């Protein structure tokens, strides 16, 4: 898959294009990419970065970083992806000008888009407008109930098997391993303290089972109430792992929420609970 950062980097060809932010590259997104590939034309995914809602000043918690998004789009198998920098200026562009630069200008003949697709200044661009500009618009295959916002909602509630079913793979949290309170080591469970990348969605506080670097993980997301913490921490204990992860990047798959976080009567009680969590993580099953 070719990754282009501007229309000029694309090779001239007749194309079928899917447009969107594709955050999470969930089952619905993959169905759209499949539809583009099925046209037999050169298949192109046009995606925006940063997420338009962030540029427009709204808060949005993302399911994927750009790198991970491109990797997952690549797995879905289009010929190429065009990453368009989303700016305030672009959001105010007349829809006809947007189409001329990014669609007809790159040889687009077919666009796969939902009937409710809107773009450009005043959200005036829509499917009839695309058709009037000579583009063939094919409907997005319907994948019932799958949307990025639905997935975010499930993750916020801690329903990770539910999120995984819509994503078509487990939810992931990605970031850098940073120095933490170094408390886990003294309890016999050294953890990697993960600082997630900016704007990434973090699930509901609680204790989770998952996987990282091929090792089972028991992870705690929360403020460590036992120690009266107030800052959010994401701490992952990798089972049967020895090594130093400080400074490295880590992708953490989270499979299921084991329990809520809480304070304990004593440190012994806490340690016993952690040991039980570790066993539960060992027994956990990867969703989908």
């Amino acid at each position, binding site marked *: 898959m070719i990754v282009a950062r501007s229309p000029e980097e694309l090779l*001239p*060809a007749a194309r079928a294009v899917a447009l969107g932010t594709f955050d999470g590259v969930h089952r619905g997104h993959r169905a759209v990419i499949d539809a583009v590939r099925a046209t037999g*034309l*050169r298949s192109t995914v046009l995606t925006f970065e940063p997420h338009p809602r962030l540029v427009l000043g709204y808060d949005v918690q993302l399911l994927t970083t750009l790198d991970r998004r491109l990797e997952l789009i690549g797995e879905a198998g289009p*010929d190429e992806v065009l990453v368009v920098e989303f700016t305030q200026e672009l959001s105010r562009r007349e829809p006809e000008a947007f189409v001329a630069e990014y669609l007809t200008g790159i*040889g687009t003949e077919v666009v796969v888009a939902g009937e409710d697709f809107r773009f450009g200044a005043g959200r005036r661009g829509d499917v009839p407008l695309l058709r009037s500009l000579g583009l063939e618009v094919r409907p997005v295959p319907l994948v019932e109930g799958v949307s990025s916002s639905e997935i975010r909602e499930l993750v916020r509630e801690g329903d990770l098997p539910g999120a995984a079913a819509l994503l078509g793979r487990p939810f992931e949290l990605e970031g850098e391993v940073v120095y933490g309170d170094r408390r886990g080591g003294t309890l016999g469970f050294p953890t990697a303290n993960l600082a997630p990348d900016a704007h990434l969605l973090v699930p509901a506080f609680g204790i989770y089972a998952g996987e990282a670097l091929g090792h089972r993980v028991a992870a705690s997301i929360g403020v460590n109430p036992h120690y009266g913490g107030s800052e959010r921490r994401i701490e992952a204990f990798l089972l049967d792992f020895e090594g130093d992860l400080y400074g490295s990047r880590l992708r953490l798959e989270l499979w299921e929420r084991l329990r809520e976080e809480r304070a304990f009567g004593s440190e012994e009680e806490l340690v016993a609970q952690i040991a039980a969590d570790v066993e539960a993580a060992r027994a956990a099953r990867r969703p989908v």
Partner: protein
Amino acid sequence: MGDARISGLVLVDKPDGPSSFAVVDDLRRRYRTKAGHAGTLDPLATGLLLVLLGRGTRLARYLVGLDKRYRTEIRLGLRTSTGDGEGEVVEETAIPAEEEILALEGDVELPIPAASAVKIEGERAYKLHRRGVAVEMPVRASTIHALRIVRYAPPLVELDLHVTSGTYVRSIADVLGGHCRWLRRTAVGPFRVEDADSDRVLPLLAAVVHLPERRLDEDEAPAVRSGRTIPGGGEGPTALWTGDGELVAVGIAGEGEIRPETVVG
């Protein structure tokens, strides 16, 4: 490798008049390298001609057989000996209605024009035709994927056609009882006449945009250059390229591996 001269693909919008060969020859002189086209265009036709330069000429085999798109204006009611305005009128016919023209969409058997480059008993049909030798022209199975009437103004009709490789538009005019007044090729497979620019040499990778691709890592690229098979999925011709966008070869994929067929880089 071992060839510092320019290699690539040029999309040319051929004007009315010169032969495809003349256009190729022009580019050969201009870039001082080997040049060849992938699919000829009649002198009287205009539109997209794919010209391969340097090592790119080896890629021609992957460009033949692509679907074509044409715009044409047909004079209905007058059949000519050539299917175009060059020949003599051989028959006056009834002018078909729009529905009759649209009914041609789909699989059709079309006679090969007498004035074509097809060989009949070892000789080019157009040479026989010029000598006045009347031959029974064979028919060829074609598929008209799409036929759109741009303008119907009898006795003239302008059509937009999307056809399989090897379909003669002059034959389509002939079966409609008319002849081509002009013909313009608007696309060859994924290549569009809108992108034509004879001053721009596109990279070799541009010539195989229609093929599935497989990216090579640092170890695989030299292996492919020396003709060694690499693991890979898919079926049929596959573009093998490196991360920096350089086409190394076209390989044939099958049974979990890809065998280099045409090494270019």
